[in-house]
């Protein structure tokens, strides 16, 4: 048995909050809040009436509440979730059922399309929507200070991670974002001259 692992068995009912370090496997009933540092598995017979927050969260049972993963959220066959999913990576396998909003990858960190009225969603001009893998690392912004010390993922999804600090109750709230960084950084004054000098 993993020293840091917890398991809430099928006949166990918890009314209250579960939090802390380590992985947890839920097979019973929980009504309250779940927020752990480690991974969470919601088993096939689990009935969770609670927001769930973990590192990698895998759902195979029933959840009424938002599900947040600092690394990923995966709904597998048997999952029945009413609530929003928020994570840098989200997977829904065939058989995984969701009624709610999904925010993952770069779409998850971009402008608040989900909250604009549908008519306004289609822009007048073509939108430069870039492929997930081509987006360059974003420039340092004040937003980065919101990231908690433990979230140290230096990946393209790093702005996505900082969004996870938002309270779970309002996963749709996306801070206003300035124009995306240009792909070519503007050269500082004198840099051009310095480069010419180097080339000689």
């Amino acid at each position, binding site marked *: 048995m993993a020293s840091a692992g917890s398991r809430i068995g099928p006949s166990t009912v918890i009314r209250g909050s579960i939090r802390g370090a380590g992985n947890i496997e839920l097979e019973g009933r929980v009504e309250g809040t779940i927020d752990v540092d480690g991974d969470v598995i919601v088993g096939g017979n689990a009935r969770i009436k609670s927001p769930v927050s973990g590192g990698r969260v895998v759902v195979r049972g029933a959840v009424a509440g938002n599900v947040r993963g600092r690394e990923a959220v995966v709904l597998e066959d048997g999952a029945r979730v009413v609530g929003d999913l928020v994570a840098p990576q*989200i997977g829904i396998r065939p058989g*995984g059922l969701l*009624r709610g909003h999904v925010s993952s990858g770069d*779409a998850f960190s971009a402008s608040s*399309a989900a909250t604009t009225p549908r008519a306004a969603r289609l822009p007048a001009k073509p*939108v430069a929507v*870039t492929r*997930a*893998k081509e987006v360059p690392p974003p420039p340092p912004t004040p937003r980065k200070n919101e990231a908690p010390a433990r979230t140290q993922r230096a990946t393209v999804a790093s702005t996505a991670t900082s969004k996870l600090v938002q309270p779970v109750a309002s996963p749709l709230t996306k801070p206003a974002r300035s124009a995306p960084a240009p792909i070519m950084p503007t050269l500082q004054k004198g840099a051009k001259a310095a480069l010419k000098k180097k080339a000689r």
Partner: protein
Amino acid sequence: MARGDSSTEDTVIGKATRVRGRLSGDGHLVVDGSVEGDVEASAVTVRGELQGDVRARGVVHLEAGAVVRGDLHGESVAIDEGASFDGHLDADFELPAELGGAQGKRR
């Protein structure tokens, strides 16, 4: 308004193609390129970019690399972990009684 073949052939929006407007048809629609607009087909697979709602009579599948913003409706919806998605899913099911049962429908 583009119309797909009402046969077994796939309609493919290629990588270099950008579509603005609605797409609707009976077959399997594959989006490798970029679509801005609502889409409706028997089955829809997205590998490229899509900004709009997706309606399929059968399967909606967002593959790794897809960037999608909009709501998905289908008999079965699958999203690969490498896909980027911002939108709503509205599957038809009931939660167990202890979690609200039928009340779980339509928040």
